[in-house]
């Protein structure tokens, strides 16, 4: 029995497995363990005293509640936007439907902290909207003040996660299941409540939880809006201003990890149920969507374009700002200039250059790791696959602030051999952080592409005389390249707008990437122009990447952003 088991284990595979495990342990699990250790110990013995302290301090308690309520509100408002959008675009057939589906994912191509700046310009105290209100009605609405502003930015930025997941699961509901209910006498809202909604629930809930995780994780938006009474900015401030020895920062990190883990666990739980909605399709190519016209069409169009119009305001704002000479206390800029682009491309070109360098490296590392791990998970003959999978997926639930804190804790004090300085002083730390943060996405993409290669395709090649190596290079690899490219692109675009771990880990100004540049520029009034120009570059990068990912996936818009 044991001998048979041992025979099934491949030695060279096991060696690779161990190397991978060591890598993942060093850069993902160990930093996290160190954070946990600090948070749960007092003078080297287990203790909950830091947590008790945390909840006794009014500021922390408020931050905790604020983060929760921001998550909740973003979910509620996001649902109010997304559910009708999803329902209309899937169930109704009308001109402009595809346009709405495409525009619906555009908010994701903008880093949220860029959106925060842009929305300040439009909805802020002296933004376009309030200036108009003042001019016409002599009043103004403080949209962007405090938590409210954070919630508005996050809702407008993250609602596509709900939209995409809800649309996907709605489109997957076998139309004959609804027809059967009609046949049994059910229709309208009752049909929706009794059959459609329960069937699309898994995807919808997954979308909700994804938004929640992102909101907890988001450091850029509160920082940009100068509202720090939330978990992520508190952790950031504690660690960066008081220092790596401050316990409270670690406690906040642990709380953030727990919240994300719970959400992630919930999302996966729900998503594993979602396949049940996808019974085989009925015979006669039943159309899912029906044509509408008249006042219903008008209502649908007005709703969709109003919602999308509002959610695309930040894009417009940042675009205008990047060309504006001066833009304050006026509805539109007084004059326009190209100077901001000259600034970022010729005077501070390192921001864009660094981004390209770091993110390409991170994407390459993720593709390499992701494909090897995926291959081992699916075809490998080694013990302990589950452990590898678990550690590689873990970063989904580790907020950027937490990972960065862990890195600072682990690597800050020790000099590397040969370099004579700690890892945290080298720019490579950013590449490592990005690779770790995005590994789950790439891994999933690789995993999916290997999984759909039926083993018989490889066996057919073996049967026709190709050896294992030839089979891998001529059959398996070509078949999985689509997934690899998509996974790499995904890692690239999400890394290029990563702010949380970036601002904590950038060792020196000139090592800073694009997101860091935007953050620095936006600190001063004169920097807003170049900051916006960098923002436009970021949007273009992400948009191009997203477009390419969807082309590669060929799964329609937004495949990359579904859980």
């Amino acid at each position, binding site marked *: 029995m044991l001998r048979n088991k041992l025979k099934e284990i491949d030695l060279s595979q096991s060696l690779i497995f161990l190397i991978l495990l060591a890598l993942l342990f060093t850069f993902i699990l160990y930093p996290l363990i160190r954070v946990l250790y600090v948070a749960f110990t007092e003078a080297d013995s287990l203790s909950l005293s830091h947590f008790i302290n945390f909840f006794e301090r009014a500021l922390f308690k408020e931050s905790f509640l604020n983060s929760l309520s921001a998550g909740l509100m973003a979910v509620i408002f996001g649902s109010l936007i997304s559910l009708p959008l999803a329902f209309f675009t899937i169930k109704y057939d009308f001109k402009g439907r595809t346009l709405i589906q495409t525009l619906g994912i555009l908010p994701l191509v903008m880093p949220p902290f860029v959106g925060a700046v842009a929305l300040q310009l439009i909805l802020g105290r002296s933004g376009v909207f309030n200036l108009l209100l003042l001019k016409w009605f002599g009043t103004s609405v403080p949209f962007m003040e405090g938590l409210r502003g954070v919630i508005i930015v996050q809702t407008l930025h993250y609602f596509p996660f709900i939209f995409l997941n809800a649309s996907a699961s709605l489109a997957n509901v*076998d139309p*004959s*299941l609804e*027809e*059967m*209910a*009609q*046949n*049994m*006498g*059910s*229709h309208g809202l*009752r*049909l929706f409540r*009794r*059959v459609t909604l*329960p*069937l699309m629930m898994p995807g919808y809930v997954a979308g909700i939880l994804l938004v929640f995780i992102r909101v907890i994780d988001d450091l850029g938006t509160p920082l940009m809006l100068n509202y720090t009474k939330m978990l992520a900015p508190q952790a950031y401030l504690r660690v960066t201003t008081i220092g790596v020895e401050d316990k409270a920062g670690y406690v906040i990190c642990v709380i953030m990890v727990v919240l994300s883990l719970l959400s992630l666990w919930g999302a996966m739980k729900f998503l594993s149920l979602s396949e*049940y*909605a996808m*019974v*085989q*399709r*009925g*015979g*006669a190519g*039943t159309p899912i969507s029906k044509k509408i016209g008249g006042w219903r069409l008008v209502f649908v169009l007005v709703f969709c374009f109003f919602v999308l119009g509002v959610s695309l305001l930040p894009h417009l704002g940042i675009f205008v700002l990047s060309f504006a000479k001066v833009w304050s206390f006026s509805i539109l800029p007084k004059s326009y200039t190209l100077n901001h682009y000259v600034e970022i491309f010729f005077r501070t070109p390192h921001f864009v250059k660094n981004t390209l360098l770091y993110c390409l490296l991170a994407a390459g590392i993720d593709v390499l790791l992701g494909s090897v791990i995926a291959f081992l998970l699916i075809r490998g003959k080694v013990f302990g696959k589950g452990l590898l999978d678990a550690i590689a997926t873990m970063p989904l639930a580790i907020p950027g602030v937490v990972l960065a804190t862990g890195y600072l804790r682990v690597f800050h004090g020790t000099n590397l051999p040969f370099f004579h300085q700690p890892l945290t002083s080298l720019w490579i730390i950013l590449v490592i952080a990005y690779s770790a943060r995005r590994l789950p996405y790439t891994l999933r993409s690789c995993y999916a592409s290997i999984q759909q290669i039926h083993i018989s395709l490889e066996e057919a090649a073996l049967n026709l005389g190709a050896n294992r190596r030839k089979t891998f290079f001529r059959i398996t690899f070509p078949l999985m390249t689509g997934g690899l490219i998509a996974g790499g692109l995904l890692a690239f675009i999400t890394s290029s707008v990563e702010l949380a771990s970036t601002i904590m880990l950038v060792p020196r100004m000139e090592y800073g990437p694009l997101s860091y540049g935007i953050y620095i520029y936006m600190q001063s009034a004169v920097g807003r122009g170049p900051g916006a120009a960098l923002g436009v570059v970021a949007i273009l990068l992400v948009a191009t990447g997203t477009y390419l990912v969807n082309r590669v996936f060929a799964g329609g818009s937004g495949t990359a952003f579904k859980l």
Partner: protein
Amino acid sequence: MNKASEVRLINLGKKFGEVEAVKDVNLTIERGDFFTFLGPSGCGKTTLLRMIAGFTRPDQGTILFDGVEVNDIPPWKRDVGMVFQSYALWPHLSVFENVAFGLKERNLPKAVVQEKTLRALSMVNLEGLERRRPSELSGGQQQRVALARTLVIEPRLLLLDEPLSNLDAKLRIQMRQELVRIQRDLGITSIYVTHDQEEALTLSTRIAVMSKGHVVQVGSPKEIYENPKSQEVADFVGTSNFFSGSVVEELKDKLRVRTEEGVMLAVERQPELPLGIGSNLLLNIRPESFRISDADEVSSGENRVEGVVKTSAYLGSLVQYEVEVSGGKRVKVNLVNPRKKSLLREGERVSLTFSSEDVIAIPFGR
């Protein structure tokens, strides 16, 4: 059940874009009929069924239930029960909840829902499985749940869209018998869609053969099989050997026809086929109509064709031969119950005999 309805379709038509899925269909489906739409995939049979259920709106024509037009009545008010090819069982509901769904929609009291649901489940022999989820059932059981769910609301009309196509062969035959039993017991008007001619022949009281959106022939299974009115029908229902030829001689109750291959065949004269000398005919002989005798054996059959065995396939209950007759034409010949007889070898000369009554004559151009 005296709720059973009569269905009339008048000039019914439906286009999908440029494709005419259903064209000028005129049919009356009698109360209590087990009526089948039979045809190859893409012939419009499912579209026709979906129009009767109300899921697809006809572009032209009228659908009448008991003489009342239902074109504008939405599916949820038509009171027809449909069984989908995919069964369409709701995965989020248990077997009981699936079956009880329609009753709850009708706001029946709880006790009635309970009682009727259990009765429907016992009718399809599914007692004791109420709490299961559809995914925990076998294909045959899922099929029964789908049937029970539809029948429990006592619809005026039962629509079945290839309900047996996802079952394996044995189960399919068993479910066929059960379907017939339940339908006859309830007396419910049923409309069945299938591309399986055997299914259509065994289940139906009447069949409409469809092709390219048209109904090409309506009749009882026996009429359809024994007296197909066109090559299309003959070809689709059962296996056929076609010969084209022209009438060379008229006798009292027979016609003599010379085929293109030069074979002379005697054909029964039919009053509805007024054919004179020289008129062209398509002749069809079913494989089971032939008797095989040795080439030199004298036979008393009215028609006799000589040939050479080209292929043979032993199927247990029968042997299928392909025999090459004059002109190089191959005919399919079935020999039933080959138990005691020795099998013919390939290359062996045989003579095929068959009665003039077994020759189905179809006028050309039809």
